[in-house]
């Protein structure tokens, strides 16, 4: 039933890897929708709900994404097994953090060792949380200015217009101040 659905809509492992390396949103879409039911089933049958499934699954995909992007991607087993194993590990950790029992886990797929990748991921995840916290504490309009400049790649001119600064120098000064505060927050935490 489920496996039929999976095999019909899931792209091949090679397609996924190439798609991710080429930043193809379509490939990511296929990957995401392809394996989500597998993880949803796992979480639902192990004391979780669909929101848990979403969080865990997205984290799992991030791990996979970073691994592929990292370039040292040699998949010794099927992508499906990798995703399942990563998500399983993440969920088990969450369960134990909530001090729920993790002994009687219902498995649906083969499991492989992914501890090393996950340690690496946890490190990065910490950095992500730190940055998120720092941005949160930064407040508006600094947060938007920084995001516009560094994420959305807006020019100083655009920012100047968007935020109604009289000239780009003012905007630059503002951005500098914001960035200094953000750095302070980021390195402090």
């Amino acid at each position, binding site marked *: 039933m489920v496996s039929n659905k999976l095999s019909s809509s899931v792209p091949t492992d090679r397609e996924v890897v190439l798609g991710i390396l080429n930043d193809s949103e379509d490939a*990511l*879409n296929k990957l995401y929708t392809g394996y*989500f039911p597998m993880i949803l089933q796992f979480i639902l049958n192990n004391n979780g709900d*669909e929101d848990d499934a979403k969080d865990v699954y997205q984290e799992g995909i*991030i791990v996979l*994404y970073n691994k592929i992007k990292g370039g040292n991607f040699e998949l010794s087993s099927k992508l499906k097994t990798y995703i399942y194993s990563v998500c399983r590990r993440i969920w088990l950790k969450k369960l134990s953090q909530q001090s729920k029992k993790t002994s009687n886990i219902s498995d649906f797929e083969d499991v492989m060792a992914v501890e090393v990748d996950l340690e690496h991921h946890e490190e990065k995840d910490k950095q992500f949380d730190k940055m998120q916290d720092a941005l949160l504490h930064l407040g508006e309009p600094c947060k938007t200015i920084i995001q516009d400049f560094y994420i959305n790649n807006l020019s100083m001119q655009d920012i100047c217009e968007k935020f109604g600064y009289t000239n780009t120098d003012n905007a630059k000064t503002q951005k*500098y101040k914001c960035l200094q505060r953000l750095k302070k927050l980021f390195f402090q935490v």
Partner: protein
Amino acid sequence: MRNEIELEGIIEDYLNGKLSEAERTAFEQLRKSDPIVDHKVVAHKVFLESFGEYAQVLDLKAKMDRAHAQIDVETLTEELRPHPSFIINMWRKNKAAIAVAASFILLTVVTVYSIQQNTKQIGSVELMSREMAKIKIDQSSLIRIIKAKTTPNAPKNTKPANFGGTGFALTANGYLLTNLHVVDGADSVYVQDNKGDSYKAKVVRTDSQYDLAILKIIDKSFSPLSTLPYRLKQSGIGMGEIVYTLGFPKDDAVFGEGYVSSRSGYNGDTTQYQVSIPVNPGNSGGPLLDHQGNIIGVISAKEKQVDGATFAIKSKYIQEALNSIPNDSLGKKVAFNKRNSLQGLSRNKQVEKIQDYVFMIKVYK
């Protein structure tokens, strides 16, 4: 303040590789000479990397959220939720294990079935009468012929017998028991004792149901035997019982020992035992004795394709065959000795005594 902003702009350009060659060399010089600038460069680099990763993850999450929006999570959740029914739950969780178990059971059933098919003894039974013609007998039969000539009343054997088997004495006055298939269709039957003397015999009774035949020595030169040493065991015998036989697969008596391996014979025939004992053509009709010297059966056949599967007609049916014979046709009731003089004797002493009562049956067709 102004300188700081400019410195950061330069640092950023430097890290992004936007500086010209000359500017870069100049900046690197400044970085070397001023540790504060150097520190700022490093810190900014770390920050930019972290921020880049943050942006990347954020971007990925946004993409995934869009993908997630396409999934009908509610329906899927309904479908994949642990089922209230224990059995369906079990099935979902242990699909693989159940599949393995099921295929194992299937395999076992198939294997057992095929073994049963195989064990239905397909090997045909080879009757143990010996086709003498196929066996070169020269010297020993010559001796017998010479001996026969010295006895005036002896039969005129001008050619050797073409079939042979084994028989044993039922009474002291010359009644013998053998297999029906040994003497079936015989023109004439001769029996030869341990000493090499041949006597003419005739078939007085046959029992095709149990494959038994009773012969009577009709030769005038035959002198009655002394009292039979063995007796017919009436009750059955168990598996694993050590048994032995004496027969004539060649022109001299051959002793063979084995054990009862099954209480039923070919294809589950309950009138027979299966005995693991080496036998050869010519052993047919030979007595099968237990360690006390009781006759427990008559060797009749062996399975062709299987080694050590010999079949012997149970003594109970010998008795039945005997009982079914009207007294007058045998002249005198055939009865075994109630006493068993072999009991307690060692094996070779038993054989020594028995061999005078076991005969080679020679059949001319």
